[in-house]
């Protein structure tokens, strides 16, 4: 290659020797510190290959002398977190349910822990905000099948309802129609009577006296004489405005005909006692707790 470089007259700097249609380029080299930094960066990068995971192989990758992995980092951080939580949860486990709600710091801890665990375990049925769905109670309101005090809520979480656990809440709404205890016409009549208990309109020609009689004969043992329900056996209050499955005539007829037996699993054994405690406080603090 012939050397076309020359000294530019105006600036006194050498040109690179390149010529583009008469336009020449001054050779203005980079400063030394810049070059040194540049090469240092390259050396640094090579160091990375040695120290950290870098190159993909046929199966796996070069793991580097440090055997660093971000997954292991996460595991360490998670176990640290568990340790920190563990210490805090000890205080929660030692305090009584009522004391937890009175202490703002413990309440905040229980609510935070409860909310997280609720999202993981309870939300599939009760919804992420515990608003419930048809057949799954809304935990924000003040209507409780098995009781809404802190202790009662905790008991329900621990052992569930019809869960198979020896200490579970156990009861059944009989399938009055399917079992042949009541005839279809009687079911319609008592369904209308139940609607009348909470001031809902009844269908035309409905016999209130007959309805009352059927109710007394079949229902009062669980739901009570006035239909106020009984939390001992998980029998809902039929006089209020909250209906787990629905308050329309057809749904009530369906309930009486086929019975109802919603299941809630027992959480004892799956969740540790202080977590269950936190969850009881969380559910209680949603607003409906008694």
């Amino acid at each position, binding site marked *: 290659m012939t050397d076309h470089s020359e000294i530019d007259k105006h600036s006194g700097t050498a040109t690179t020797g390149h010529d583009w249609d008469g336009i020449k380029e001054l050779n203005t080299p980079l400063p030394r510190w810049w070059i040194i930094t540049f090469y240092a960066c390259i050396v640094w990068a090579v160091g990375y290959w040695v120290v950290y995971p870098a190159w993909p192989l046929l199966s796996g990758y070069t793991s580097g002398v440090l055997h660093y992995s971000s997954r292991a980092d996460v595991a360490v951080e998670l176990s640290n977190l568990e340790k920190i939580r563990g210490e805090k949860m000890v205080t929660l486990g030692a305090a009584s349910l009522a004391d937890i*709600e009175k202490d703002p710091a413990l309440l905040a801890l229980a609510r935070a822990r409860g909310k997280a665990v609720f999202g993981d375990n309870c939300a599939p049925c009760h919804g*992420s*905000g515990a608003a419930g769905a048809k057949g799954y109670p809304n935990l924000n309101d003040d209507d409780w099948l098995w009781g809404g005090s802190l202790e009662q809520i905790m008991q329900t979480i621990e052992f569930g309802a019809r869960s198979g656990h020896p200490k579970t809440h156990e009861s059944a709404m009989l399938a009055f129609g399917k079992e042949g205890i009541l005839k279809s016409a009687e079911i319609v009549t008592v369904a209308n009577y139940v609607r009348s208990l909470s001031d809902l309109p009844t269908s035309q020609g409905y016999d209130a006296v007959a309805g009352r009689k059927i109710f007394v004969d079949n229902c009062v043992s669980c739901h009570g004489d006035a239909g106020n329900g009984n939390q001992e056996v998980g029998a809902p*209050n039929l006089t209020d*405005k909250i209906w787990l499955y629905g308050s329309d005539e057809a749904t009530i007829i369906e309930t009486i005909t086929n019975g109802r037996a919603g299941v809630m699993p027992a959480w004892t054994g799956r969740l540790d006692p202080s977590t269950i405690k936190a969850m009881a406080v969380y559910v209680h*603090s949603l*607003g409906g707790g008694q």
Partner: protein
Amino acid sequence: MNQTALPIDMDLDDGPLYVAHKKVYPQSVSGTFRRIKWGLMAFCLGVYYLLPFVRWNRGLGAPSQAVLVDIPNSRFYFFFIELWPQEVYYFTGLLIVAAMTLFLMNSVGGRIWCGYLCPQTVWTDLFYAVERLVEGDRRERMRKDAAGGTVKLRRLGEITLKHSIWLLIAWWTGGAWVLYFNDAPTLVKQLATFQAPMLAYIWIGILTATTYVLAGFMREQVCVYMCPWPRIQAALTDEWAVNVTYKYDRGEQRTSLKKANDLRALGETVGDCIDCNQCVAVCPTGIDIRNGAQLGCIQCGLCIDACDTVMKKIGREPRLIGYDNDINIQRRQAGKSEIYRLIRPRTVVYCAMIAAVGGLMLYALLTRTLLDVNVLHDRNPVAVKLSDGSVRNAYTVRLLNKRGFDRVIAIDIDGPPNATVHVVGVDSITRDRPMIVLGRDQTTELRLLVTTPSDNKLEKSSPVKFRVTDIGLGEVASATDNFVTP
């Protein structure tokens, strides 16, 4: 440092691949601008090194340091001001004012920031002073560096002394930095007994290294190659701004006193400049101001002092180099009178913006509330029907107490008629007006339940106002949200 030829010949074309750093040996100088620079250096460094030790009484339990960045507790203290993380926008205002002030400086007097106030300039100036003190002035240093090869004990001692003093200053700079983040006297004690937190040593190390390298070695390279500000300033200055300028209207050509007389006798024109190169010798970035305004010129004014000294000696008018602009050089050449326009649309707008943003910040600071409430409506479920048909909404309420003492707060709501309010976990003796104690200098989160009776005929959504009142001081804060029916 040896700045001679390169060890490896990386010559691919013709020149070397990189330009060799030309070491600058600024000569000592005295005069008006040197005095201003000494004064500003003493002031800036004094503030930086001593401010953490200034105390400010904020009462028991609160930090007593006037300026403190308390990262663990996320608080910033500046004398009577205490800022919380959510008030970071004050810093936005501060940055806007700072930027406008820089713009204003530029439109009035060019790179005042670069020449007098920039930390790079201040510390480099200090390091040069040390170098001069230990190794001697320009000529001596050049001679000693050129001698290079033969290492003498005395020279070795000088170099060691210089770097030791530099490192000491650098270390002190890093040390002062960490004092802004901790209680200064406590940390000084801890540092002296090697009991300070690791992070403090790391930061001192980092800032010692940056100070030592930037002020001791990089120097003018930072301004020329690394800093974006010179490029921005070139766009900010205008024809009316006065800059350090060689007044070429005082005549060309430049030649020595003796030669000038000879040339004059021959009838040639000769300028005031005697080409003594003093302006170049004192320049901390090693440029020649006579080539006009340029990137490398930080406008420190030292060449003005150097030139004035020479002009005085030879009995010519001073300020051959001075703060001036092209407009006036040309006017003088044309025989017209000088005009300097300090008040121009640009400077007026900058001043107005500084006043507006500064005023706004001051207003916001003086009228900011020390009791605050934020409300967040439950999203899921938005409303809950209770067994008696009444409707309940739940809210997460966050209360802020920015005062240094505990306060008793009452919560009221203005919303749907006959609505009742309850705070989870609080059995208030005052029915429908829950009261709670707010800890000093902290926030508290509450769960608030608002219930309306079933006979209320409400819109789908109606406004509800949460009012919190400090029972003792009568201070009130409020927030508005909505009450929703299912």
